């Protein structure tokens, strides 16, 4: 199979999986067999059956319905978190990579300081100021991701900046903004897209990690990260509670990474 054939195959697989995940999430209200928040303690830890496709959890809630609804919330919050990390990180990374040494040094200093700042404290402070909510956790996790994006962007910009055609453009007197936009940005996009795949899964898992440690958010909400964390306590007597959200999460992350990879290597990106 030629390189293009392989890429084509991967693209199809990625799109198929993602479409499946998104479709199932969107159609959750129609596909779900039960109310995802309704607790029926008498049905606790029921194994998968005709009535409960993936069984029930500690409080007797239907795992199948919760996984369906969980997709919307998990993906939505993860996208928000990734965006909060990406946009500022991108801008800072570009400025640092292309700007003068002083700008680079000072920006990277701030980034290092932010990286060292425990996201736990950030989460606590945000919750204290803004109240308890899932957005606050997204902010805390997202902000913790800005330095990573900034660093990777900066590295790519430094690479691109040294390329012959960029040097040529500068020698010819082109304005910095034009160079950034027309020459550097397209070169920088591929490694960033590669990193984007990592970010989304990182966003989901770190959000769930904060929840695991006891921080904020609507704990009753169906959310893959929260479901996985809760399922730990009962995995020996009811392993199915973790199976559905775990598989959903893995498949989604795999598909996103696959897609990001294909996009990164697309010829038009060079």
């Amino acid at each position, binding site marked *: 199979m030629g390189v293009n054939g392989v890429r084509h195959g*991967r693209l199809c697989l990625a799109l198929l999986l993602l479409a499946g995940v998104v479709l199932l999430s969107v159609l959750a209200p129609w596909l779900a067999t039960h109310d995802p928040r309704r607790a029926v303690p008498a049905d606790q830890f029921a194994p998968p059956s005709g009535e409960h496709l993936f069984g029930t959890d500690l409080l007797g809630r239907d795992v199948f319905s919760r996984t369906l609804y969980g997709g919307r919330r998990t993906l939505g919050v993860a996208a928000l978190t990734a965006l909060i990390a990406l946009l500022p990180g991108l801008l800072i990374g570009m400025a640092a990579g292309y700007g003068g040494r002083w700008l680079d040094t000072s920006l990277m200093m701030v980034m290092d300081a932010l990286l*060292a700042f*425990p996201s736990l*404290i950030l989460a*606590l402070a945000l919750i204290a100021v803004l109240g308890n909510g899932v957005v606050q956790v997204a902010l805390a996790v997202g902000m913790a991701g800005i330095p990573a994006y900034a660093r990777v962007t900066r590295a790519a910009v430094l690479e691109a900046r040294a390329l012959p055609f960029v040097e040529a453009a500068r020698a010819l007197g082109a304005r910095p903004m034009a160079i950034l936009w027309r020459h550097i940005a397209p070169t920088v996009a591929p490694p960033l897209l590669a990193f984007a795949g990592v970010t989304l899964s990182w966003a989901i898992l770190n959000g769930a990690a904060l929840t*695991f440690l006891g921080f904020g958010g609507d704990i009753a909400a169906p959310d893959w*990260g929260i479901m996985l964390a809760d399922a730990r306590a009962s995995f020996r007597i009811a392993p199915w509670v973790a199976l559905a959200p775990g598989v959903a999460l893995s498949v989604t992350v795999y598909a996103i990474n*696959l897609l990001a990879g294909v996009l990164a290597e697309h010829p038009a990106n060079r």
Partner: protein
Amino acid sequence: MVIYALRRLGTALAVAWLATSAAFVVLRVVPGDAVDATLARAGASEEELAVRRAALGLADPLWQQYAVYVHRAVQGDLGRSLITGQSVTEMIGQQLGATVTLALGALALGIALGTLLGLAGGLGPGTWPGNLAEALASLALSTPVYWTATLAIYLFTVVLGILPGTGGDGFRHLILPVMVLGFHTAGSIAQVTARSIRQTTAQGFVQTARAKGLPERLVVDHILRVGLLPIVAVVALQVGFLLGGTVITETIFVRRGLGRLLLTAINNRDFPVIQGVVTLTALTYSLVNALADVVYTLVDPRVRGEA
């Protein structure tokens, strides 16, 4: 070179100061203090709480607390825990070794495994080893650490009984946590490596070089050099995450470490301890990134370093 090193050291110190100051201010925004965490629980009256706060210096104006802290810090005195009265330096010293050992072990495994998986995935897209490598890397990225940790303990300690799980400082106790953390570290590294190599391979001048008959060894050489560059950045980041983000692994494996120290200190609002840990992590991140920049410049001289 020496001047450069000194300059980077200066930057590292500035970063540490910046991060600690930020922590100082942000902590005061968070509700409650050490006195709330301890005395208030036992039912002390507001007057008693106020007396205790004054004794600990928590009632002083913020700028004064800050000035006192900085004044001591530059002399190497990071203060004392508001809860146990233990010296912060001593507390960090007790926990540091365990974290460093775990981080280094996980990093070693992560680099080795990650590079291997990444090379397989990057140089051989579409082949079954390549796809398998990609799938494994993806799995490492999509599973939460607390799950792999729990399953690893269950499998290796309870079911198979071949490795110790929780507790203990011995070398054997290090194996499982390193395996778990290393696996996850490898995921990030593998992913970025594979992408970068594939992208570099597909670049125009590679095909041109091949068409011109350049020896394959040199072509691969070039691919690897450029393709492996972003890994330096990712590895530097991973070091940061490993040193600061091991709290979950330490909690589950019942190990000493800075992560647990920090979490306990946050729950107790033990400001000096929190600030001490932040200072240390900021210094470390900064130095590690400086090292990464140096490596960058060495491997690809086209890149603007600071030399």
